[in-house]
């Protein structure tokens, strides 16, 4: 059976668990604990090991969706999960104090995925009206890795159609990177 592991990364409170719940066809396996950092992100519970959901294709191929715990103190879980991953959906909260820097930090931690085009950035809570514009996320990514065009979308993790778009964009970008990435490297 073929499997494809897709990670949902990003800081606490960006909507990773919700996104997986909206995409998964099985009841999501979650590892929530009461959040004792409500002064940082005001939500009742937080993921401490992983979330797990899946989408089965033709009964024999699985897209496995893993959500990571967002806090740095759980980065040993990041190392475990990224070994098998083909790509990641990086969710950031637009009304966090410095969401662009948070995005760049996660990209550093998941460099291997980024380098092969396996990243889509989803900016949540952008409707609140504060926070950087979408273009400034793209510009920061371009500065960090010139020549690489990473999809950046505004997302509502509660919206299943939007999360499907995000997942599909990730997969098609990985495939096109694999097909043409080498060619582009030659032409530069």
């Amino acid at each position, binding site marked *: 059976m073929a499997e*494809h592991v897709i990670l949902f990364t990003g800081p606490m409170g960006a909507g990773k668990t919700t996104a997986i719940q909206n995409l998964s066809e099985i009841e999501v396996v979650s590892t929530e604990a009461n959040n004792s950092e409500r002064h940082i992100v005001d939500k009742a519970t937080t993921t401490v090991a992983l979330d797990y959901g899946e*989408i*089965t*294709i*033709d009964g024999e*191929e699985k*897209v496995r969706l893993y959500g990571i715990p967002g806090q740095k103190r759980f980065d040993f879980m990041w190392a475990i999960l990224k070994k098998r991953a083909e790509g990641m959906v990086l969710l950031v909260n637009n009304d966090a104090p410095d969401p662009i820097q948070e995005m760049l930090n996660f990209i550093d931690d998941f460099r291997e995925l980024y380098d092969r*085009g396996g990243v889509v950035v989803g900016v949540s809570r952008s409707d609140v*009206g504060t926070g950087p514009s*979408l*273009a400034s996320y*793209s510009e920061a990514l*371009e500065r960090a890795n010139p020549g690489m*065009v*990473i*999809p*950046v*979308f*505004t*997302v509502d993790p509660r*919206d299943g159609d*939007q999360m*499907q*778009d*995000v*997942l*599909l*964009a990730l*997969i*098609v*970008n990985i*495939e*096109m*990177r694999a*097909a*043409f*990435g080498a*060619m*582009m490297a030659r*032409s530069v």
Partner: protein
Amino acid sequence: MTIDAKDLPRESPSVSMGFPVTVGWTHAAMAINSSLRLGTAVNLTMHVEMHGPLLIDFKNHAFSWSTPLELFPVDAVHTGLETSPTVEDGPPFFELPGEDLDGLLWVMGINSFGGARAYWLPEGERYQLTRWPNLTRHNHTMRQMQMIAVLGNTSATTKELATVVGVEESEAQSLVNALSLMGVLYRSTAEPEMAIVKPTAAAKRKSLFGRLLKRLGR
């Protein structure tokens, strides 16, 4: 309808652009493309029959229109267009934030020129993406998503783009028009020709994207 300059308030001299009554969005796209590329601070008002005035504030990259983009009238009748100069700290043209102009540019670009090359694009160029459009906010097809991913990873002519994704060249051209209007394409000369080939049936079977699309019913 064109508005005579003497009818307008003196501090905001508007210029009607000799805009003919037209059906569809080609002329509108051309006018907007000129305003965007000129880079001078202007506001623009478009009169669209039955759909009220469409106001564009280029400085804030925003528009305001009573018609929601989900109900975008492809065959709209345009009856007039004016530009009015503004200054950096001028009063807002309408209540901000308004709507993101990219959404309008996307749908207008897709629905103008009838699948032919936009007039501002010279013949014989390749295109490469500089930034993904915000697809979760724009009504799009999966083939458009696929073409965008191609342009994000290589540079291609519209013909090559159409071949890779397996669509009519006019469909690829409409997408290129829209991306170009949005200012997210890097253009270069088409020479030398590149060996972009149509994906084989085996490659298509290997594509998780294709299978997942089917599975999700998209």
